[in-house]
């Protein structure tokens, strides 16, 4: 029988330490919506999403009420749209109509984000891939809830440098197209190396082609819970520290597993994976940076940060893996700047730089995330930053991502406000030396030697 102490512990995690399930994401395959007629594609997509996801939000709310654990987001991911729209779309404008359809469907079923306005171009771009990529600025400007992601490289294929160059330009154009709205388009646009097919987190969620017709993926959270657990073992050695993180991660993940099973059962959709990520929010006490401080750093970004983060990330996985039958997605500590008050403070104090963040991404998921940079940063420089991050993912056989926001009209020292879970970000300085000649080379970077395992 459950005892008083255990009940109190769980409820304190929920009420005081920001334990929540960050997202239930329903993956929906749109492969059966492919048609050569654009109107038909749009109609089929709208009908399929609004039918499959009809009960998603209500089911989430029901589970939330029954178990007393907040489920912050209910979201949808779909098959990469470059594949779905490829046969019907002849211009970028055609693709934008699909983005608008996705937005309408998302609003109809009440989800706050829908991911999958995506193209997978790690080796090469088809005509459709390129049209979709070129449509992103307008698609992001004309929709509210649609998220876009592009896979630019992988350990198996190398890095598509033509696409990296193009994405530098597209990110700038997206910022321009949404400049009246804090360049918000870039907060909904992410590029990947080794993008997972079953990631439930935005902006990078899409329903991979390896997936079933529909699937439930769940992302857990709980940086605040880990931090509070570590406060109780302040000054203890690494063994105790690691044990504490593992046990806490186990408990957090079990809640995710329960919610995933229930959502799957109630909706009649198979359960896919739990994503074991420590996902911070701008709320005080829900910060990965604060965990690093609790581990013993004056501020995130101080020497020792990469080691502390590597350890944290590893222990979260070790604890979480046993708590769930299927683990997937990104699974690691997220280190977004704008969504984590501790990170924002570290940047403002001068403790955390873009280069240190890049080093941190070598040991945790996911990448340079929600970082505001000066609006006059050159497109080629953005491509250079992307190429560096893709290289880290490619060589280390891990997922890396870049979500940069060049804030048009703002420079270092300014702040940009996104609102809600996306938070706010100080504009960070970028290395001003040029990489134009490097980025302008054509072709791709070959796959690394250790990818040849056959």
């Amino acid at each position, binding site marked *: 029988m459950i005892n*008083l102490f255990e*009940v109190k512990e769980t409820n304190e995690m929920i009420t005081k330490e920001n334990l929540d399930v960050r997202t239930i994401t329903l993956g929906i395959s749109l492969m059966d919506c492919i048609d050569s007629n654009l109107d038909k594609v749009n109609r089929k997509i709208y009908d399929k999403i609004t039918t499959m996801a009809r009960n998603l939000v209500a089911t989430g709310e029901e589970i939330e009420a029954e178990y*007393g654990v907040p489920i912050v987001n209910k979201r949808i991911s779909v098959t990469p749209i470059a594949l779905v729209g490829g046969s019907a779309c002849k211009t970028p404008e055609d693709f934008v109509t699909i983005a608008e359809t996705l937005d309408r469907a998302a609003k109809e079923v009440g989800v706050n984000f829908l991911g999958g306005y995506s193209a997978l171009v790690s080796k090469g771009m088809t005509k459709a891939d390129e049209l979709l990529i070129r449509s992103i600025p307008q698609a992001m400007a004309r929709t509210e809830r649609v998220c876009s992601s592009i896979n630019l490289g992988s350990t198996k294929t190398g890095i598509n440098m033509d696409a990296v160059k193009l994405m530098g330009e597209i990110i700038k154009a997206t910022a321009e197209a949404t400049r009246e709205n804090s360049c918000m388009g870039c907060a909904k646009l992410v590029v990947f190396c080794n993008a997972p097919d079953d990631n439930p987190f935005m902006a990078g969620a899409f329903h991979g082609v390896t997936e079933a017709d529909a699937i439930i993926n769940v992302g857990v959270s709980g940086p605040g819970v880990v931090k509070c657990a570590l406060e109780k073992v302040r000054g203890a050695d690494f063994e105790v520290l690691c044990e504490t993180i593992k046990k806490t991660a186990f408990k957090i993940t079990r809640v995710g*597993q*329960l919610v995933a099973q229930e959502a799957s059962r109630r909706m009649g959709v198979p359960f896919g994976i739990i994503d074991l990520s420590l996902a911070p929010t701008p709320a005080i006490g829900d910060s990965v940076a604060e965990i690093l401080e609790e581990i013993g750093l004056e501020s995130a970004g101080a020497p020792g940060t990469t080691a502390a983060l590597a350890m944290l990330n590893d222990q979260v996985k070790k604890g979480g893996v046993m708590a769930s039958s299927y683990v997937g997605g990104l699974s690691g500590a997220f280190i977004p700047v704008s969504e984590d008050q501790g990170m924002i403070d570290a940047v403002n104090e001068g403790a955390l730089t873009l280069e240190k963040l890049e080093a941190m991404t070598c040991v945790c998921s996911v990448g340079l995330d929600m970082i505001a940079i000066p609006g006059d940063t050159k497109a080629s420089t953005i491509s250079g930053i992307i190429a560096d991050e893709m290289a880290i993912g490619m060589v280390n056989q891990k997922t890396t991502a870049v979500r940069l926001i060049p804030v048009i009209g703002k420079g270092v020292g300014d702040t940009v406000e996104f609102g809600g879970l996306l938070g706010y970000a100080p504009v960070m300085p970028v290395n001003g030396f040029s990489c134009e000649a490097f980025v302008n080379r054509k072709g791709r970077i070959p796959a690394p030697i250790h990818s040849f395992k056959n």
Partner: protein
Amino acid sequence: MKKTIITVVGKDTVGIIAKVCNYLADNQVNIEDISQTIVQGYFNMIIVADISESPKSNAEMAKELEKVGEEIGVVIRCQHEDIFNMMHRI
């Protein structure tokens, strides 16, 4: 039958147990176990209940009990036992 765990936390005052138990009785909820303590003037109670005979769902009851709690100035949570079982039992 799965159990429901009802927790009541707040400043101690007259009639907390009466109010909660009346609500449960009115809704055909059978109480199987109660434990209650006062820690530094704060009232802590956990009820293990069987709601299988109740016409109301766990989720509905959670919302109504929250309101009951607001009336008497305590926080009442009503949760399916599985959230605790999952977290604390392997």
